[in-house]
């Protein structure tokens, strides 16, 4: 049982398929069309049986699309329309170019390979002289990324010195690296951490040293996809009044609640993943942020951090 396509979905597909078939004068097989354009043979046949009747006034044979459909073979001869597919929308073009440029920025990408050539040609069809109108850096391409990618492929256990930004702490861990991925501009490795005895995600630029161990591991069965940070209900919360100049906080961090106050400031509630994260935020905001309410454990976070930093300047 395949999904029933709407009339507009059929139209979109046929505006691509009809010119493609017509460009192959000897005709093509239905099974190839079905693979290439992601329709089941039944869906395809349903559409083609209608295309056979399409044309322009007065709908005499010479004004219709000339289509022959015999068992697995289809041939199309066109009047003067539908000879080229419809242009890409800007959103479609962007999705394709952004994905392509991302892959080209990965450490093992081939700058002269088929992807690079395809993107260059695509840029031409989009009316741009260069394919570099979009540049993507998935993350810093350090040697660590390459070492980790190899360890993932070889299923090799590693020992890493890892700096936990949230806790401001450096520690050595033994990990089974499962997957290396870029999320929001940084490389991450998802791994089973033997020190924590749990699955953990590590940011590659915070790994200070990697030492491959002699042991291999058995691949984990869990989903290897790495998601960006999402606060949980268990995280403590803080509510801040922010001056207009601190508006960037709203765009940078996941906000639980937000409202505008009568004096033009905004009041936001944030989930706090770690006290050190909040320390950084508060010392950077200074007097632009006023703590309205907070979990008791966080109440003096900002001033404590300020005092600690001051100590370095005044000693």
């Amino acid at each position, binding site marked *: 049982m395949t999904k029933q396509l709407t009339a507009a979905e059929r139209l979109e597909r046929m505006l691509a398929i009809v010119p493609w078939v017509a460009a192959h004068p000897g005709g093509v097989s239905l099974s190839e069309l079905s693979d290439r354009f992601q329709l089941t043979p039944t869906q395809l046949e349903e559409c083609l049986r209608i295309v056979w009747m399409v044309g322009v006034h007065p709908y005499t044979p010479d004004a219709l699309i000339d289509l022959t459909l015999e068992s697995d073979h289809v041939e199309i001869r066109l009047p003067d329309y539908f000879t080229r597919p419809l*242009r890409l929308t800007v959103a479609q073009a962007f999705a394709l170019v952004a994905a392509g440029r*991302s892959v080209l920025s*990965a450490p093992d990408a081939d700058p002269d390979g088929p*992807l690079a050539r395809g993107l260059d040609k695509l840029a031409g069809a989009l009316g741009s002289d260069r394919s570099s109108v979009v540049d993507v850096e998935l993350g810093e391409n350090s040697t660590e990324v390459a070492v980790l990618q190899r360890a993932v492929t070889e299923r090799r256990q590693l020992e890493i010195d890892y*700096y936990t930004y949230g806790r401001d702490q450096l520690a050595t861990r033994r990990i089974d690296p499962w997957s290396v991925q870029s999320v929001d501009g940084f490389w991450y490795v998802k791994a089973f951490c033997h020190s924590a005895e749990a699955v953990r995600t590590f940011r590659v630029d915070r790994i200070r040293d990697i030492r491959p161990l002699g042991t291999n591991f058995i691949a984990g069965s869990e989903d290897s996809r790495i998601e960006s940070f999402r606060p949980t209900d268990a995280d403590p919360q803080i509510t801040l009044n922010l001056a207009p100049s601190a508006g960037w906080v709203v765009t940078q961090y996941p906000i639980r609640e937000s409202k505008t106050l009568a004096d033009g400031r905004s009041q936001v509630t944030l989930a706090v993943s770690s006290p050190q994260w909040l320390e950084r935020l508060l010392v950077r905001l200074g007097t632009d942020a006023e703590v309205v309410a907070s979990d008791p454990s966080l109440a003096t976070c900002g001033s404590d951090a300020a005092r600690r930093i001051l100590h370095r300047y005044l000693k």
Partner: protein
Amino acid sequence: MAAIDDKFERLMNLTAALLDAERPLGRDYILERVAGYTADGESNRRTFERDKVDLLKLGIPIVLEDIPGEADGVQGYRIERTDYELPDPELDPAELAALHLALRAVRVGESDSLGTRALWRLGGVLGAEENNPSASAFTLGALPTDPALVPLFGAVLERRVATFVYGTSEGESTRSLEPWRLEFQRGHWYVLGFDVDRQGERNFRIDRIVGTIETGPAGSFAPSTSSRGDQPFRPWNPDGSGDQSVTAILRVDGDHAATATELLGAETISAAENNGAIVYEVPVTSWPAFRSFVLSFLDHAELIGPPELRSDLIDWLRTMDDRGADS
């Protein structure tokens, strides 16, 4: 089923008629001469209006124009073929397959259907291994999207001036930009181009654009010949120039120096100390932005000079410390 068949046939016929038309077709002509408009009067007109919306949603460029030779104000519909037809990029099978693989490796935003639909128009989806269990091993990552990206990408491709409201720590202002390209760096999208009012090259962080983007006519400026721009965006020196900057001297502890070097640029290193700490000399035009950067290191970094910035930083911290003591 029959209703979908009828509508699909009518939409195909309508598209064919508008593409084939040498002059704009009036609505009455369309309802009479395009097969499929079989109902009467008002109901037919409503059907036509809905069909038009379906076509526009697919990106079919229907225009409404005066009909030559008719009385003033009599208008009709047409599709300009050069606006409709995709120039043939002549992608070979390996290139199509590489683009498909890229779409599967990198998620752009929440939906992956946009890129796939683009591939249909380019000649289909090749190298498909939908049931390949190891497909997730190809996953390379994800890019966030922003509502401003697509209009800005359109403006870059068609060389239209983009006008938008931009928010910074100094407030909001309206900017007009000849956009050259989009860049994704360290987790943020930027648009880079020539700022028309400020007469210079500028970077803008796209998530700080407020509201919608207005764009001017196509082909409004020459392609960029800029050689710069591969430089990462540094908010404490957004123009990337040394003009009117002060030189800040910053010491960062060894454990944090790698991060600092990446963010500040290796060219700013002035000395490496025995304990692993590194001293940087950084051109700064926006002190609030640099102060924010220095403070993100907490007590692992120290601003050494110049004295006026150091004392401003100390005052900043004292105010916070005092406020904590009061509460």
